[in-house]
């Protein structure tokens, strides 16, 4: 035994054995401290400073000034709304298509392995690169999207996808859906493979149809995976501006900027104070969301009435 158990059941790392275990963990602790917590703390304190890389002669504490500037910034408020559209617009189709794909890939058919590899391929490509690829595909004059739509007579004149605010957000969401479907497909497929076949056999014997089986067997069996995958995706989509950056740069006229892509722009401009304030706000909002979400999805335990002891 590497650790001793106390009466409360907790493990205590004491004595020589504990020291050895601590020594094993030390490099990891040092690295995490150095590369995660130190930059994090730096970021937190920058949010309350006048920290502009273009002029470091005055980096004094400014309290909540950076946050006040942001709340008064019309563009920042616009990016908040865009972020909501971006997350919801990307997440729902990603989930539905990913789920459908996972159900399809679960069946046994020839070349299933090849199909799976092809489906999972986008996940291996960087978001920024995906953005650049889709930027060319959605180009109004020589993009493949308009070319296909024209050839199939779905449109008569080319659509300026990335030049018109009405279409630009749709275009970036389409790209993001294509990019993120894979993640859902992978996670849900893994969960589906852990559902015992006996359950399906039993439901078939009971005469349940496909829809009934889906809602009574499949979804309840993988409920936890679904919930956590959705939570992870919300956080990741909210925090992944690279696709937007590569595809539209936040344009046209800032119409596709989300909070995190705007944050990168402000960082590029050298205003680390304002960018850090944005970063803190993002962390706070996502933490609040995660807490409420986890509370909402936690399994409700049915309280059973206590057995009354026989008198």
């Amino acid at each position, binding site marked *: 035994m590497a650790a001793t158990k106390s009466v409360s059941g907790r493990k205590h790392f004491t004595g020589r*054995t504990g020291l050895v275990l601590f020594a*094993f963990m030390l490099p990891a602790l040092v690295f995490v401290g150095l590369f995660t917590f130190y930059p994090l703390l730096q970021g937190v304190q920058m949010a309350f400073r006048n920290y502009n890389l273009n002029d470091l002669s005055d980096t004094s504490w400014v309290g909540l000034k950076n946050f006040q500037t942001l709340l008064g910034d019309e563009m920042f408020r616009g990016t908040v709304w865009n972020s909501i559209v971006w997350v919801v617009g990307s997440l729902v189709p990603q989930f539905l298509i990913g789920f459908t794909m996972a159900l399809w890939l679960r069946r046994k058919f020839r070349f299933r392995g090849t199909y799976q590899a092809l489906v999972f391929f986008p996940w291996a490509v960087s978001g920024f690169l995906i953005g650049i690829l889709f930027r060319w595909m959605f180009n109004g004059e020589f993009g493949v999207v308009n070319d296909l739509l024209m050839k199939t007579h779905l449109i008569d004149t080319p659509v*300026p996808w990335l*030049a018109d605010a009405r279409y630009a957000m749709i275009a970036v969401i389409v790209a993001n859906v294509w990019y993120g479907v894979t993640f859902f497909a992978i996670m849900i497929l893994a969960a589906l493979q852990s559902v015992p076949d006996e359950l399906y056999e039993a439901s078939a014997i009971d005469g349940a149809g496909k829809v009934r089986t889906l809602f009574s067997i499949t979804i309840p069996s993988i409920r936890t995976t679904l919930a956590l995958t959705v939570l992870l995706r919300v956080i990741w989509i909210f925090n992944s501006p690279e696709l937007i950056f590569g595809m539209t*740069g936040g344009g046209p*006229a800032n119409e596709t900027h989300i909070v995190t892509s705007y944050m990168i722009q402000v960082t590029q*401009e050298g205003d680390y104070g304002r960018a850090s304030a944005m970063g803190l706000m993002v962390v706070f909002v996502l933490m609040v969301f995660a807490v409420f979400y986890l509370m909402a999805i936690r399994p409700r335990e049915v309280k059973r009435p206590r057995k009354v002891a026989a008198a």
Partner: protein
Amino acid sequence: MRYQPVKLLAALSAMAVALTACGPGPAEKAADGTTLQMVESLTNPTRTALLKKLIGDFETANPGIKVQLISPPTNQADQKIQQMLQSGKGVDVLEVRDSTVGPFTSNKWIYDMAPDLKGWEGLDALTANALKVAQQGGKSYMVPYGFYGLSLFYRKDLSQQAGFAGPPKSWTDMAEQAKKINDPGKNRYGYSFRGGKGASGNAVAVISAYVIDEINRDNAFKLTNGKTIFSSPKAVDALTMYVDLFKTASPPSSVSWGYPEMVQGFTSGTTGFLLQDPEVIATVKESKTIKEDQWGTAPLPVGPTGKAAQPLANAGWGVAEGSTHKPEAVKLVKFLTSGDAAMTFSKENSLVPILKSAADDPYFKDGPWASYVAMNESPETYIVVTQPRGVAWSTEWENKADSEVQKLITGKAQPAEILKGWDEYWTKKWAGN
């Protein structure tokens, strides 16, 4: 099993030390001398290969010095360089651009090479424009390696088919020719409009051509009366014409076109005119769609008074203040900005050269380069001006102005309104607010 914590800890510490030693560290002494860390900014694979070749020549000529070239991706390079400079370690020689020299010097990150360049024969070989950049206000924070100057790329065949004898001379001519060439039904458009990243640069070029008679040549965002160029009524005329050029002769999707799309628009045969730097010459030459006899370059379009402002953008090499090998670093800067190395770099990167001797070089006299020579030979028509690209807020300005050009051409704002905002912005910034 018995653990031996002391030995274990020692082993782990040794492993950690060994691991950290694997990463790239600051410049260390080469076995026989010095190793310099050099970082570039406008990275592309061809250019990196060329730089490595030139560095190889330098190392051959200076056996005691080794150079390690760091090539971050272009879109993150300036930020990476900033971080390296901020840390004060790990960089000796760096690429400095007219848009980064301001923030770098105000933070005291780069070294003034003026004392080291005193008496250097390389200074005498520089053109007047290059010398001006190398000795700004008596300081030498960088020596330029070349200039990026605008000229007009045009389709000779389309221009002729539209009934014009030659390329447009003025912005008005160009708007006229572009409208004639424009035929959306054939997916053909007049002008490769820049509405995406870098949009403000071209918008300012048009404004400058319209206010050229009152422009302050040393600070081309100011008029001679001290006000900004955006405050002039002529600037409203310029932007009105420019918006019209977009609406009547440019691809609708060019609202979001940056450098690659506008060049692709021209090389794919979609557009008839393109305003760009000479580096595009090599790209157009590689086009499989348009043949060499179908295109040419012409001098910058002039404004209503027959003159244009040529805002020569520049970039060069500088030395980090934190460098512990300054003499060797300066040696490398001198090597790259003189003689064969400088000429090779200009030619292979399609840059307006920094050496006087380029005027006699047949390479710069022929074909597409002829328009640059023509502009150089008419300095009173194509007036070289200095834009305030080195100010600390240059990135902020570019982001702001780019998005506002998009507002302008998508009809969300009017020229007068945009110009009023730009005028207030620069007036405030110069006042120190």
